[in-house]
């Protein structure tokens, strides 16, 4: 007998918080709002921990709890049901844990902002949808969560809706996500057609019965469409453009939604759908290529950004690219591992960046920072931990997870040395731009106004930083790879979910190539060190060099600094034609010409006809009587005619 874990509590607790804050928070003091917002998320976290503690006792994996029927149409059934397996457990822990920390951080960060209750209500709402997404036992419910986090993201990006850029960024995020969702929806339709169900418990066995596709078929189509959805949600090429703009939202939002959790939903979804992807080599290749390109592409942009949050945003895109690269080489556990560590250190980075911004009273431009090391030591040290972690320095969390991915990219049957090379190059770039950020922010002389007095953030903000810093440092030890003397706990834990169909990679790779793996590790560490060195050289030692380099590579630099003009390109290729088309064709042509025109013409025609008919309405009673008499005579004549026949 499987114990009832009441999984529904995990998403619903934040929903209650959202409802309370949303409905009544306006009249409550800030302390009460914060308490409600944090308490319900904390409760969800606690419940998740309890569930995790019970996990090993579960008789059956996955553990499914059905609550109520939702849609029953013909043979198709979708229920409100929750699905617990190692994957969703890890995700739920990450989401609730990191979410809880960020909620605490927000208490301090949002202290002086208007709409305090609104912020916490949205944040709780986000938690609800995110947990629904993670715990759903079918694609449809997952899609609800998927759309819901999009909504929450939209609301939070546009939290400062008075700012044009913020509301525009919110709309942009929403619209770009729509494109991905469109693919996701079609994938769901195809799934229904193929499997007759959207329940994971029915879909995956059904998929498993199908063989690996030798030529692109319906599974490839489904996988690619799912990937399209993932691209939208997880900001991959070509749909990544919304994420940098999303930095208009408050920093905790950037940390929670646009770094740690929501944007990883795509990775989660791909990992969740691994039975589908694994049966379509072409789709896997596409995923890997997209991930690879995104990683490299975003990293290059990050190098030239000056806004601290934008650097982190492109970094996020780049790291997400890593995860997709892992997925693309069927190393789902590596992807999830990196997802987890990334959640720790990227959340930490954002929060620390928020702390910096907080310290400087809203300054986000790194060119105006510098020398903050002494002023905000806690922030500095936690940020240092995170920077080293993301750069992949040995024995920090990022090192293990990134190394795992790079190794898989090399060794997996779907992998190739190209993926590895790009990965290593990206790792070097990552190291470079992160240390650039680090040096620009904390070292050298203060470049800001002289009357600036940076102050350390309150404890309520520092506590999450410290916790996350610890996690960033040690978080990788749950999944130390074999080659580094680890046990691969994480991988084994996730194995039941992401077992590859043919069981190809694991056995073959393990013992034979330990040497190769060690070599590769050394290469990536070298790349990271190189990145550190150049950053030190350019942004600490020789401050004049960057300008010279920028001048030397004028065109390329401008292109990179302007994000390769992708936004402008999209604008010219997609947005302008649409606007023009709607203006010329839909508005002037269809609406004004056809719809309004037909209405107007109908009116004027009716007027003409009635003008003619009006002549009958002379107002003369006797004329009316004449008509009536004529009508009566006609009726009578007809009746007589009928009768006489």
């Amino acid at each position, binding site marked *: 007998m499987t114990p009832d874990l009441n999984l529904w509590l995990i998403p619903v607790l934040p929903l209650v918080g959202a409802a309370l804050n949303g409905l009544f928070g306006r009249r409550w003091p800030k302390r009460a709002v914060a308490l409600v917002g944090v308490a319900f998320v904390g409760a969800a976290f606690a419940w998740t921990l309890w569930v995790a503690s019970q996990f090993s006792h579960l008789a059956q994996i996955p553990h499914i709890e059905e609550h109520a029927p939702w849609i029953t149409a013909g043979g198709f059934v979708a229920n409100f049901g929750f699905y617990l397996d190692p994957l969703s457990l890890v995700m739920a822990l990450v989401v609730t844990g990191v979410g809880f920390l960020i909620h605490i951080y927000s208490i301090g960060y949002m202290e002086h902002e208007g709409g305090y209750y609104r912020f916490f209500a949205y944040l709780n709402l986000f938690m609800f949808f995110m947990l629904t997404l993670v715990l759903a036992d079918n694609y449809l419910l997952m899609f609800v969560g998927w759309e819901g986090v999009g909504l929450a993201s939209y609301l939070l990006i546009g939290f400062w809706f008075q700012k044009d850029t913020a509301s525009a960024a919110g709309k942009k995020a929403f619209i770009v996500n729509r494109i991905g969702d469109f693919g996701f929806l079609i994938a769901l339709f195809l799934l229904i057609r193929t499997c007759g169900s959207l329940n994971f418990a029915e879909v995956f066995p059904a998929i498993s019965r199908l063989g690996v596709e030798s030529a692109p078929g319906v599974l490839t189509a489904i996988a690619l469409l799912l990937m399209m959805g993932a691209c939208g949600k997880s900001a991959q090429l070509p749909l990544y453009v919304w994420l940098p703009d999303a930095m208009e939202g408050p920093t905790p939002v950037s940390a929670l939604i646009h770094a740690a959790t929501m944007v990883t939903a795509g990775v989660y979804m791909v990992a969740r759908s691994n039975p589908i992807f694994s049966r379509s080599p072409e789709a896997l290749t596409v995923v890997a290529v997209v991930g690879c390109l995104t990683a490299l592409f975003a990293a290059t942009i990050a190098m030239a950004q000056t806004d601290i949050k934008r650097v982190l945003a492109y970094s996020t895109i780049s790291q997400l690219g890593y995860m997709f690269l892992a997925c693309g080489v069927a190393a789902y556990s590596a992807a999830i591992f990196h997802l987890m560590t990334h959640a720790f250190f990227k959340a930490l980075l954002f929060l620390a960046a928020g702390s910096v911004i907080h310290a400087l009273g809203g300054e986000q431009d790194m060119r105006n920072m510098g020398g903050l090391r002494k002023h905000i030591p806690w922030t500095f040290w936690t940020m240092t931990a995170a920077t080293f972690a993301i750069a992949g320095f040995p024995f920090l969390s990022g090192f293990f997870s990134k190394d795992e991915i790079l190794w898989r990219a090399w060794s997996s049957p779907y992998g190739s040395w190209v993926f590895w090379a790009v990965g290593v190059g990206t790792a070097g770039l990552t190291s470079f731009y992160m240390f650039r950020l680090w040096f620009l922010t904390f070292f050298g002389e203060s470049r800001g106004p002289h009357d600036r007095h940076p102050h350390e953030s309150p404890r309520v903000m520092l506590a999450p930083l410290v916790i996350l810093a610890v996690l960033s440092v040690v978080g990788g030890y749950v999944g130390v790879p074999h080659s580094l003397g680890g046990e691969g706990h994480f991988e084994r834990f996730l194995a039941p979910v992401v077992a590859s169909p043919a069981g190809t990679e694991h056995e073959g790779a393990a013992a034979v190539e330990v040497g190769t793996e060690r070599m590769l590790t050394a290469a990536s560490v070298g790349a990271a060190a190189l990145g550190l060195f150049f950053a030190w050289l350019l942004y600490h030692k020789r401050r004049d060099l960057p300008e010279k380099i920028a001048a030397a590579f004028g065109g390329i630099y401008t292109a990179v600094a302007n994000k390769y003009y992708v936004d402008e390109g999209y604008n010219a290729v997609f947005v302008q034609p649409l606007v023009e088309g709607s203006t010329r064709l839909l508005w002037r042509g269809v609406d004004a010409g056809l719809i309004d025109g037909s209405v107007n013409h109908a009116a004027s025609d009716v007027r003409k006809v009635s003008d003619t008919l009006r002549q009958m309405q*002379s107002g*003369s009673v*006797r*004329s009316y*009587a*004449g*008509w009536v*008499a*004529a009508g*009566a*005579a006609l009726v*009578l*004549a007809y009746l*007589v005619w009928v*009768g006489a026949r």
Partner: protein
Amino acid sequence: MLHQILFFVFAAVCVAGALNLLVQRHPINSALSLIVVMGSLAVLYLLLGAEFVAAIQVIVYAGAIMVLFIFVIMLLNAGEEEHSGGSRVAAVLGYPAVALLVGLTAWAVVRSSGSANLKLGGFVGSTEGIGYLVFRGFLLPFEVTSVLILIAIMGAVVLARKED
């Protein structure tokens, strides 16, 4: 024989009265002609054995409704009808239509009724029978007409009241 004589006499009076209604220019003469028509119709009703109907024809129509007409004519001091432009529609459509109506009806009636004859005293409608019918079978219509009358009274009062 007697029936035929009486019928033709009073039918002639009826038609003459109706024609007079049309010919007379003064509304009061038209009204009196109409009273004559109604009176002779009452006689025809008697011939058809409809005593009660004949009586209320006189009481209600001649005695009440037409009094109302006369009253209004007197009140408004309506003079001779003036000649005003005719209605083309009435002339072109109306008169042929009337001719057609009467002609067709007469033709249809004569053609279909055949040799159905009415005997004098062949059927006498008792007042009691009508009472039973009205208060049993036609109770609802009867009540509805009472409401109608009430509405008409109120309508007449509202319409004819002088606005202050």
